[in-house]
């Protein structure tokens, strides 16, 4: 530290006369995107996402079954691990403000908290979509290289429709992680809750469905982690879309509404 005794510029003008426009949304989005890479931890998480995708695609391209190797297979295979890690980026964007207490500065600069949370949601959405596109590119690379080294014809069988559904799958998973984060507002419990949702809820749900007939009938409408997996299947029927919509309301919209009501009012300390 230098013992700088420089004086600040005096306040430039009467503040009342100052023309300060509202902070536009694109600036908030810019800042939130920046926050996803500007610490070692957040950069490592994104690198982990990329590394996970590369590892899965690489392993399947090299050691996977020859008759399965193709763009759709690789893209579909990498989708599940991405569902586990990508939502963490969006969740930590919210919880980090509380865990690291940056909320004190963030919400002093932008008192309309809903706009900040909106920017975080948009940033999470962009990360999810970008990761999905990245996984397609990796899968294409894996298909090309894997086929060439094994001397087989590359199979380019990923339809635009299937690609869109895989992207939607990642977006829904990200929305769940984000909604949990808005409700819980603490990093570790949020990640645990999300992993429970992804890893424990499906077997628990199918067990319950086996025991209780009543639950078996409603399970597809409420068990989002199982229901959303149809998005990675070959096709989605009309009723499945409806189930997906209802389950998303339960796991995303409901916690978001309850969490936001609290987040907008809670004292930031």
């Amino acid at each position, binding site marked *: *530290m*230098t*013992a*700088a*005794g*420089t*004086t*600040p*510029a*005096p*306040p*430039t*003008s*009467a*503040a*009342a006369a*100052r023309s*300060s*426009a*509202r*902070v*536009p949304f694109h*600036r*908030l989005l*810019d*800042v939130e995107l*920046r*926050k996803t890479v*500007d*610490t*070692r*931890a*957040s950069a490592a998480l994104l690198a982990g996402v990329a590394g996970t995708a590369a590892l899965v695609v690489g392993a399947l391209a090299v050691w996977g079954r020859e008759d399965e190797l193709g763009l759709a297979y690789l893209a579909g295979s990498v989708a599940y691990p991405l569902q586990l890690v990508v939502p963490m980026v969006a969740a930590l964007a919210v919880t*980090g403000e509380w865990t*690291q*207490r*940056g*909320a*004190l*500065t963030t*919400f*002093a*600069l*932008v*008192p*309309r908290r809903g706009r900040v949370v909106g920017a975080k949601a948009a940033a999470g959405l962009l990360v999810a979509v970008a990761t999905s596109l990245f996984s397609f590119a990796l899968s294409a690379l894996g298909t090309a290289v894997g086929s060439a080294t094994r001397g087989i014809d590359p199979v380019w069988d990923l339809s635009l429709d299937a690609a869109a559904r895989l992207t939607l799958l990642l977006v829904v998973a990200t929305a769940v992680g984000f909604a949990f984060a808005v409700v819980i507002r603490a990093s570790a419990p949020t990640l645990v809750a999300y992993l429970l949702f992804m890893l424990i809820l499906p077997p628990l749900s199918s067990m319950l469905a086996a025991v209780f007939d009543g639950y078996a009938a409603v399970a597809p409408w409420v068990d989002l982690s199982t229901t959303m997996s149809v998005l990675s299947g070959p096709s989605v029927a009309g009723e499945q879309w409806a189930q997906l919509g209802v389950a998303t309301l339960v796991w995303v919209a409901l916690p978001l509404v309850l969490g936001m009501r609290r987040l907008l*009012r809670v*004292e*930031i*300390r």
Partner: protein
Amino acid sequence: MIQIAALTKRYGDFIAVDDVSFTAEPGRVTGFLGPNGAGKSTTLRTVVGLAEPTTGRATVLGRRYADLPNPGLEVGVLLDASAQHGGRTGRETLVLAQRTLGLPRTRVDEVLELVGLTRPEARRRVRDYSLGMRQRLGIATALLGDPAVLVLDEPANGLDPAGIRWMRDLLRSFADGGGTVLLSSHLLAEIEMIADDIVMIGNGRVVASGSKATLLSGATTLARADDADALGAALRAAGHDATPTGDGAVATDAGLAAAGRVAFAAGLPLTELRAADGSLEEMFLALTAGTQRDGATAQPTTGAAA
């Protein structure tokens, strides 16, 4: 200008802030003094919209803080220097605020220089900063938008004596330029050094407020006249001590009646004449002792280590 009117904040049955009213004027440094847990931070959080008052109202520059379109350009806020992401570099912390406010990138270097953080220091991660460096970084964030008002909670914590003097000079020149400064402290000495006006709070209530000159003079009487200088001169001519308070009044050791007669004889109409508040230091000690006793009621008064 910051105006706080009848502000009350309850948490269940606990009243953290109890009917607090005061004004922080432009051109002056207002020190918000009180023991730990007196309600200072809660009040300041309410001023900048991070907490909702139960009743009452706080305005900054005539508006509720949350209604300011881009508050960082009008109000610099530092509530807790340790509440900064440890994984970011000091510079990155400022860049985030600079981008939010829509300021040119060069502004980051300007405020870094202003608070005396060197470039190598700015490249280090905040978790490796001392508390003093975090305070400087927090002040840099607050000054980024070239605001007219500063709200600082315990900004001198962790600063060495040279740092406190630096802070005083910085806030002095800020106020001299017409800015409003509201800063809190739990140390009387710090407030004495930095503030022009003092608001003392204990158990959520304002127990004393006024200019530092008045509160610290130990005077018994406060007299106000349109021409305070003439009043002071008349009192001194009559053999009394007289200290201008800086806000148009004079604190004097003359009794109420004596002060009134002096003013009458000098032909100066008094606009205010009252007993001055008790000694700030005594009141502050009483407040602090009160909170300490609460924690040590069982302790005998004799036999305790001095």
